[in-house]
């Protein structure tokens, strides 16, 4: 074939591949939802996965939350102090954590800590034909392997994000009040005055649930779709981290545009 024609043909193949992959992903997601019954009937399976996805992510989430909050405290103080309004430090730390940084950074960490592990595990299960073996034994791998992991991720993510925000606010308190000496009363009272339960905290939780769904669904699909080779699994793991990070940032923009429009 002539060279330019080959380029066009490749473009066509990429497009077709992309479309059929998207369709497969949607079908896979639907199948996961349909087989979720098992994840709740045999809740032990889900608990096991919450341990691996949630509990083992705790250390990285708590430590990064503390440091993010401490940095926010330092930087916020530097800026606010030039306007003589360092008493608003609590508001700054709490709002930026609860609205944005908590769900987003916890989501990114969750994608790289738990999402990659899920993809690698399922990719290897597929490569070593464990999934096919299950099918041979008339056990549906989607119900037995995929659905519990999906729900474990969806349950873990909001908890991790809430803990991230809480620890971050504590970090901001440590730096702002204990270290620098911002007035403790105005730190907390201005925060309570400006942070709204419904508009800020609930929306933050909604965000983290959406990110949990996105990250776990992407991780499971990439693992299930991985070519059953060593490179295939490693490529799928990389794709999980890249795709879910991009998905988190993109979804965050869309959700923010819907949630906080018109909120001063």
């Amino acid at each position: 074939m002539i060279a330019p024609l080959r380029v066009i043909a490749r473009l066509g193949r990429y497009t077709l591949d992309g479309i059929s992959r998207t369709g497969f992903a949607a079908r896979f997601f639907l199948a996961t939802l349909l087989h979720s019954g098992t994840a709740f009937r045999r809740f032990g399976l889900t608990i096991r996965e919450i341990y691996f996805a949630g509990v083992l992510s705790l250390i990285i989430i708590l430590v990064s939350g503390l440091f993010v909050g401490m940095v926010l405290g330092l930087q916020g103080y530097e800026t606010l102090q030039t306007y003589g309004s360092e008493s608003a430090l609590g508001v700054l730390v709490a709002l930026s954590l609860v609205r944005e940084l908590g769900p987003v950074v916890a989501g990114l960490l969750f994608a790289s800590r738990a999402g990659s592990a899920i993809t690698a595990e399922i990719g290897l299960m597929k490569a070593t034909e464990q999934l096919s073996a299950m099918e041979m034994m008339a056990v549906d791998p989607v119900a037995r392997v995929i659905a519990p992991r999906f729900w474990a991720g969806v349950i873990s993510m909001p908890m991790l994000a809430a803990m991230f925000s809480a620890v971050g606010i504590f970090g901001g308190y440590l730096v702002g009040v204990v270290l620098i000496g911002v007035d403790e009363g105005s730190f907390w009272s201005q925060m309570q005055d400006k942070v709204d339960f419904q508009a800020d905290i609930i929306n933050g939780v909604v965000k983290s649930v959406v990110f949990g769904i996105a990250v776990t669904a992407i991780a499971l699909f990439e693992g299930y779709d991985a070519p059953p080779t060593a490179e295939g699994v490693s490529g799928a793991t990389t794709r999980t981290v890249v795709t879910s990070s991009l998905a988190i940032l993109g979804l965050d923009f869309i959700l923010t545009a819907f949630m906080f429009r018109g909120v001063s």
Partner: protein
Amino acid sequence: MSRAWLDLWVGLFVAAGIGALMFLALKVGSMNTVNKDESYQVIAHFDNIGGLKVRAPIKSAGVVVGRVTAISFDDKVYEAEVTMTLEKRYAFPRDSSASILTSGLLGEQYIGLEAGGDDVKLNNGDRVKLTQSAVVLENLIGQFLYSKAQEGAGN
């Protein structure tokens, strides 16, 4: 790892997650939105609302008694119409006056509600008739310059 330990760890994890949420809800945030059943709405017309925003507090004697829930423009009288949601436990006389004030020099704007002397109280849907608009800095400077110029002309 045995099943019991797994359950214990996951239980601790979930408890910590719920604890963090409670911390955020109780210590960090507050239920600023006034409950619908325990509030009543009054309307006030202003010539100029300045930088007043929805959800701004309504204070009387410095205490928050409600929130601004809607701001619109009335093209019959060419004035701003501000809907104020007040808590039911606070009753105000019908001839109370509302004025738009600023907390501090650069702070946010809020509505100050000053009680009048009437025996009849404000009810849901009533209008606060006595209002005072926000101070617009440009108008203030303009007035000042104008009065200075008049002083000069008088001499």
